[in-house]
């Protein structure tokens, strides 16, 4: 039982980390990014390549991959998504357009990765030794990843609530139009937040690659889990993200160990629907719309 809960918490921490970037992209920049999981897998491949090719530790790899992802996502927002933002007459239209554009992007990225790496599953061995934790044996790489996840989450939370830039970002999330009235550069803030979300998902990708096997086509599953966590927790809400991520991870681990590992996705969706039926705005969301 303890083992299942511990596994669930580690899994849930990972889901929370994955979803944090998306909640920024969707909650603040208002881009519903369906290619989100592809960026995670791309980062995982980058980390794999650095580790097996140059023996660069994934922790050092973070320092390379994350800034690169930030720059790349900033460019994507500026070049690919800004025209859509300008064209959209309202938020719903932007949502539809961004869904379509990023859906197309999904296939471009996935196709490129398939062409580069093929359809095989990849993994590498990093910190793969057992350690004792709370009386249970767990893999060191998973525990480290959980630690870094918590650090990243705390840093992000502090940045959003304690700094001036973070306050500006939250203002844009609440009302992008009113934010302009208090001299916030909304397009710039949106672009930077989108890029920050991309950087976070790249960090998640590097961490995930240390303990999970992945393939060029497994991005969709991550996109889906991130979407479910974001909607369940309430769009743009960091705390909701954490709670929903943990709930998802726990339910998955419990079902996998007590019912059947083949039904985890069904449990995800059941949980998602249950939350939506009771509270359509998400666990911590306010029903503004």
């Amino acid at each position, binding site marked *: 039982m303890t083992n299942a809960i511990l596994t669930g918490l580690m899994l849930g921490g990972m889901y929370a980390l994955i979803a944090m970037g998306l909640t920024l992209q969707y909650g603040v920049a208002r881009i519903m990014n369906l290619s989100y999981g592809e960026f995670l897998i791309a980062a995982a491949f980058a980390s794999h390549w650095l580790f097996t090719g140059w023996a660069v530790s994934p922790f050092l790899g973070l320092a390379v991959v994350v800034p690169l992802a930030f720059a790349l996502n900033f460019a994507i927002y500026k070049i690919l998504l800004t025209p859509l933002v300008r064209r959209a007459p309202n938020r719903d239209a932007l949502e539809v357009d961004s869904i379509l554009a990023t859906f197309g992007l999904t296939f471009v990225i996935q196709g490129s990765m398939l*062409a580069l790496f093929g359809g095989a599953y990849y993994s590498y061995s990093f910190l793969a030794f057992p350690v004792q934790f709370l009386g249970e044996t767990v893999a060191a790489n998973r525990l480290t990843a959980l630690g870094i996840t918590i650090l990243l989450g705390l840093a992000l939370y502090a940045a959003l609530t304690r700094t001036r830039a973070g306050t500006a970002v939250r203002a844009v999330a609440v009302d992008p139009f009113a934010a302009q009235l208090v001299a916030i550069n909304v397009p710039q803030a949106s672009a930077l937040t989108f890029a920050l979300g991309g950087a976070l998902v790249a960090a998640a990708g590097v961490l995930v690659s240390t303990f999970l096997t992945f393939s060029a086509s497994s991005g969709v599953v991550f996109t889906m889990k991130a979407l479910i966590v974001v*909607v369940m927790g309430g769009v743009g809400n960091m705390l909701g993200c954490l709670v929903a991520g943990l709930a998802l991870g726990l339910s998955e681990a419990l079902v996998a160990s007590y019912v059947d590992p083949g*039904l985890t996705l*069904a449990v*995800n969706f059941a949980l998602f629907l249950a939350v939506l039926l009771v509270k359509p705005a998400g666990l911590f969301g306010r029903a503004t719309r």
Partner: protein
Amino acid sequence: MSARIAGFSALALAALALLAFVPRLGNAYYLALAISLLQYTVLATAWGMFSGPTRYVSLATTAFFGVGAYTVAVLGEILPWPLVLLTAAALGAIVAGIVGLSTLRLSGVYFVIFTFGLTELIRQLVVWFEVNKSRVLGRYVFVNITQADIYWQLLALTAAVFLLGWLIARSRLGFALRVIGEDETVAKHCGINTTFAKVALFTISATVMTLVGAIMAPRWTYIEPSIAFNSMISFQVLIMALLGGAHRLWGPVLGAVPLTLLFELLSARFPNTFTIILGCIFLLIVYMLPRGVAGLFEKLSTRTSGKTAQRVAA
């Protein structure tokens, strides 16, 4: 107006009669191509029937297509063919009803997310069931259906879909959907039962997609979940409907026909980079032709005739 309708239906009947003779040409390649054309035409039109007026992007075409194909794989040898088709249609309608009732009451994003995951969900459930309960993964389809039979069934379905779409567009339901697409709050205030209208149309559109999957299934002799639930179908159908313009009943055809031919060519020439090319084409359409070829026609016709139909394109 009624003279125009009579003219149109005469033209449509003549085209239908002409198309029915394609299998008689005796060329297997052209027949296969014609089947692909019809398949994507029906799928894209069915997609546009729901997503066009409501503007809810559905990414679950593959899910329904796969349900249809898998029904045939399981029941094809047990039941007579018409009953198999009926069962498939009923299953598709039930799945669509459940998905629609649980998500369409809410905002559109939840619907998109749910349809995005639906294919994967159903695929996992099918795999789970096959591995644990029936203990077979992958089934052979041995039914007495020729390529020409598939073609004629698809042609009949195409005619049915267009007739249905035309009737719906003229009915109260079609009008309600257009109002919902323009502004859902206004629709509610007009006394339209928005949930009912959306779920009803989604179910109709999904049932058609399921039927296409069932009709196409005998084309493969071997079916397994990864073949039946191939997410490329959702993507291709979406591209076609968008290129054509989903807000008109005849729009998706304008996208389905040229793109099926193009994909046929591309997948043969560039099998490795096909997905990338597809993605790029799709992005081009989203940026360059947001209202599709149909929108382009409307723009041109209003420019030449100067009528106020521009309101539609605004």
